[in-house]
């Protein structure tokens, strides 16, 4: 979700889980008020004598060991793997399913195939996707997506894109006017090194009953909006059927107390809650005859984007994706990002994890490409152009995000945003790819 590594370079390391491991280490090793800015400090300035960021118990002036912070939370209700495997949201049995369940996935899909929009992780780089889809609207290239999936940053923008161009202005404001102060507050919560109450408030403000009503209507018309979180207890990804939740939220005869609206907002927060940096989100469930809370974190932990259950995406599965076109928006650049790495732990982690995330995205794109070809449908992928190099002054720099939004917008409006195959590797193969002409994109918005 966020990018705390304020490298003095053109583009943020975009993707959530990775960069944030380094982010919380940065905070661990630097004064809390220094935040991301501390990244550019010298190693000597960063290192506290203890090497660890500690917080005192309320009313005490003496710092405690970090582990002692766990005492501030009540003990969790015990539950078993079987309890969790069977757990559902009370009153909303259709709210979610395991991301590895082929049966539940197929059951949740629309009756009619259509174009699918897949939105990746990316933190502040989500401005690219927001701009791109808004640009598709402006250029008349935007289809009605029958399925929209979002992970982390992709999850936060997905509801607005699913609900249609009516929300483009909201999307633009969110990704060009939001700063780090609107996302998090520096300071340990005991579960994380930052507190996301500002993001929680922002989500509450933006996810309105009107938006949910529009999403519920689209759901009833057969379209689907899926958001992915990670059930950390189970180490499994969860797909949330946000349209179904919205339908519950708008059914006032059943949703006493706004539970569905609250769940909708909590799922979005959870999907972007990078473990370690942001606190996990507890979600109340019922399973095995008892009520307990699951711990959910960033959906990016289980993969940078989601098309279908992993087993169905295997190149040998024979699965046919029931879509007419697959559009994957990668809120990240995929080129190597040269950096003379400082001899500090955060710098080394940031560069390493940033590279690992790009590799993960590339592998996932390749898998999606093969799945699309095996399904006989068009594959379309867009990522931040290699020549985008606007400077970023820190986490969620509005100037940087505006520039990235505009880049995405221009691409989207041009009608040439998408390529029909994954971006080539640097210094890529000279062997021509074997791509069937029968599966080339035919929808507007896809470049040939």
């Amino acid at each position, binding site marked *: 979700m966020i990018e705390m590594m304020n490298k003095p370079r053109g583009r943020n390391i975009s993707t959530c889980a990775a960069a944030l491991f380094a982010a919380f280490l940065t905070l661990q090793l630097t004064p*809390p008020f220094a935040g991301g800015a501390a990244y*550019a400090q010298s190693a000597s300035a960063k290192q506290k004598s203890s090497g660890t960021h500690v917080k005192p118990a309320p009313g005490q002036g003496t710092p405690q060991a970090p582990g002692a912070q766990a005492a501030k939370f009540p003990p969790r209700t015990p539950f078993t793997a079987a309890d969790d495997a069977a757990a559902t949201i009370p009153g909303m049995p259709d709210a979610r399913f395991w991301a590895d369940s082929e049966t539940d996935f197929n059951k949740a899909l629309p009756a009619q195939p259509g174009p699918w929009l897949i939105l990746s992780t990316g933190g502040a780089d989500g401005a690219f996707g927001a701009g791109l889809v808004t640009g598709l609207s402006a250029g008349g290239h935007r289809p009605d997506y029958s399925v929209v999936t979002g992970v982390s940053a992709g999850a936060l923008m997905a509801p607005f894109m699913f609900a249609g161009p009516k929300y483009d202005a909201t999307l633009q404001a969110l990704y060009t006017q939001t700063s*780090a102060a609107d996302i998090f507050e520096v300071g340990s919560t005991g579960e994380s090194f930052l507190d996301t109450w500002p993001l929680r408030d922002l989500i509450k403000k933006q996810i309105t009953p009107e938006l949910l009503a529009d999403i519920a209507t689209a759901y009833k018309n057969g379209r689907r909006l899926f958001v992915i979180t990670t059930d950390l207890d189970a180490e499994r990804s969860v797909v949330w059927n946000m349209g179904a939740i919205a339908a519950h939220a708008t059914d006032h005869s059943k949703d006493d107390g706004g539970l569905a609206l609250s769940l909708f907002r909590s799922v979005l927060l959870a999907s972007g809650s990078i473990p370690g940096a942001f606190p996990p989100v507890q979600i109340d469930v019922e399973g095995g005859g008892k009520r307990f809370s699951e711990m959910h974190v960033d959906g990016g932990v289980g993969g940078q984007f989601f098309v279908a259950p992993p087993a169905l995406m295997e190149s040998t599965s024979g699965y046919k994706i029931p879509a007419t076109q697959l559009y994957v928006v990668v809120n990240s650049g995929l080129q190597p990002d040269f950096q003379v790495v400082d001899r500090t732990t955060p710098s080394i982690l940031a560069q390493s994890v940033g590279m690992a995330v790009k590799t993960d995205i590339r592998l996932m794109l390749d898998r999606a490409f093969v799945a699309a070809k095996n399904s006989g449908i068009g594959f379309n992928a867009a990522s931040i152009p290699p020549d985008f190099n606007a400077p970023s002054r*820190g986490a969620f720099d509005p100037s940087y995000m505006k520039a990235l939004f505009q880049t995405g917008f221009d691409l989207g409006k041009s009608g040439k945003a998408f390529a029909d195959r994954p971006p080539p590797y640097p210094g890529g193969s000279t062997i021509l790819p074997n791509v069937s002409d029968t599966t080339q994109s035919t929808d507007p918005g896809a470049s040939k």
Partner: protein
Amino acid sequence: MKKLSILTAVAVAGVLVAVAGTPSEAAKRGRSSAYDGLWSVSIRTQAGPCDPAYRYPARIVGGQIRQADNDFSYQISGAVASSGGIAVTVSKGGQSATGYGRLRGSTGGGRWSAGGNTCYGTWSAMRRASN
């Protein structure tokens, strides 16, 4: 462009303590002040190579600032007047930042600068809890 991170840190800390400062009359008498509580301070940079924006917690007790997240690697001095006017200086490693402004009820705001105006901007604060 290399950011002036230490300055940023100092400046931010300056704003943190801008909601408190040196012992007020209330603090000297060991009494609570009208501004006691947990505050959240949003700092925005208008010019200079500092971070664009960040948010930090701060606690005021008896009119004195207490860093909500313990860190003693910087020094603070300043005051919150009963009128809500504030002036504060924060220093660290030979660098310093200053913040000025005013609190009114449960909100507040002002300006900050650091490093001989290398960076400057605005801050705003909101009280999230009264204790």
